[in-house]
């Protein structure tokens, strides 16, 4: 898998927060209460943030609040200085979203119509829409799909179509709920490349959720661990991965590379713990090439 850890954001960075969330509570119509509390959640401009947690931890609830889809009963959400639930229309133009079940977000009867949905609804000219769609479909490599009917596509292709629809307006903030779910490993790699490319090129802030810990080092500058409605950890890959107790508590598997290299260390090899495949390769070469 490609690396991509070019950015490191630290607490106390002077950059302004794009998103700030403080201890939220929401009550669903069937009276279920959901809260997301614990550490403050923040995301800066151009930052890649991953929310890691088991199913039902509250990841989607947190995203829905950021998107303005839920009204917090308690707590505060601020996105680009606005209140998402109240200032939904101003915000939505700056946000691109890919939900977990992309079938639910694809509207257009053909791939072209779906990607064109937002620009057309916003009143862009036909020529401009054509141009936008040409650009984004080239970037994602889905030009041949434009005339296809979405439900006959593979899940990887559907995700790409949904992503194209989210990226077509070049949003400042891109939010993806479980983008790697149900993808084969090739599609996962492609997805990682696309996301990192967009982040690098446009400085797009990207927020992803996942329960797949091994993918995190490739897509995140900052990781939050969410466990039963509480943010229990925050930091970069190294900081978070070293808290193995927290990871176990959250019912997440331990990152496979950390586990492997911890064992090597226990056997007396002098290695540092890698988080990406590239680092691991380097570390192993070091061991092998040692005289």
């Amino acid at each position: 898998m490609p690396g991509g850890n070019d950015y490191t954001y630290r607490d106390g960075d002077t950059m302004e927060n794009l998103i700030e969330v403080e201890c939220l509570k929401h009550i669903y119509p069937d009276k279920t209460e959901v809260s997301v509390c614990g550490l403050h959640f923040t995301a800066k401009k151009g930052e890649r943030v991953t929310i890691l947690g088991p199913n039902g931890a509250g990841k989607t609830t947190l995203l829905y609040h950021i998107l303005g889809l839920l009204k917090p009963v308690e707590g505060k959400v601020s996105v680009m200085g606005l209140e998402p639930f109240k200032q939904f229309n101003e915000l939505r133009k700056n946000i691109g979203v890919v939900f977990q079940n992309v079938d639910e977000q694809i509207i257009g009867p053909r791939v072209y119509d779906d990607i064109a949905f937002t620009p057309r609804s916003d009143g862009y000219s036909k020529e401009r829409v054509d141009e936008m769609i040409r650009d984004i479909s080239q970037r994602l490599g889905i030009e041949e799909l434009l005339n296809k009917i979405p439900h006959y596509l593979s899940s990887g292709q559907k995700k790409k179509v949904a992503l194209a629809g989210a990226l077509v307006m070049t949003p400042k903030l891109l939010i993806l709920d479980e983008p790697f779910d149900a993808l084969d490993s090739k599609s996962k790699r492609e997805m990682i490349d696309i996301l990192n490319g967009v982040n690098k090129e446009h400085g797009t802030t990207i927020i992803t959720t996942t329960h797949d810990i091994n993918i995190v080092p490739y897509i995140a500058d900052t990781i939050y661990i969410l466990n039963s409605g509480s943010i229990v950890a925050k930091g970069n890959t190294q900081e978070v991965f070293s808290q193995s107790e927290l990871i176990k508590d959250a019912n997440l598997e331990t990152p496979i590379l950390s586990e492997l290299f911890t064992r090597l260390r226990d056997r007396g090899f002098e290695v540092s713990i890698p988080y990406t495949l590239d680092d691991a390769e380097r570390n192993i070469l070091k061991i092998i090439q040692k005289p």
Partner: protein
Amino acid sequence: MHIAEIDNLSLNGNSILHKSGTISKVILTLLILISIIISKDLYRLSGLISIVLVLFVVGKIPIVQIGHLALYPALFSVFFAVLSAQQGWVAGLVIIFKAVGAALTMLLLITTTPYVDVFSVFSLFMPSLIVDIFLMTYRSFFIIADRLNNLLTSIRLKGGYKPWQIVLNFKTIASMLGTLIIQSFEMSERMYKIYELRGYSGRIPIRTDLKPVSKIDFLLCLAGMIILTGTVIPWKI
């Protein structure tokens, strides 16, 4: 339902009919339908059905595969045929021929033209809300059919389906439908939110710039006119 089967034929077909414009196909279909409906004798109807069958061959549609769909109208028309039988068996046959002919004509249209294109022709004269409901129904159908399949599988695995226990089946079906409808309703709430996020303004914009008009399109329309004229004028044999 056989939506997937028909989609496959209409989307992946590469005959001259598949390549021609949607509007011309709709016009041809309408003209043939009118011809069938106003025909009163077996000769004309046989002729019209033959034309439709020839068009199936032109469209490279395997008639065996979709022919069974024309059996429903055949079956239901039998009832009316029996009612008319007191006027002679010819009257009965005319009814069955009309039913089957009309159904085959519709099938010809939907096996050579993807739904989406048929709907986009609708959008030329129907209110956008109706077209949106068509599109939403078509999309939802697949999502729900998938869910229903999963539900059915899980019910079978849990042993909830017993062919001879009607009451039990009934309960299972009711609770299955209940679950499905609640789930679907919750899904529709999510969909609405997502649509809002994507800038949904109350209508789904679709491409209506239908394929450029070609010679084939003129030919199809012309053929339709000739068929209708041929049906209307008296023939002397």
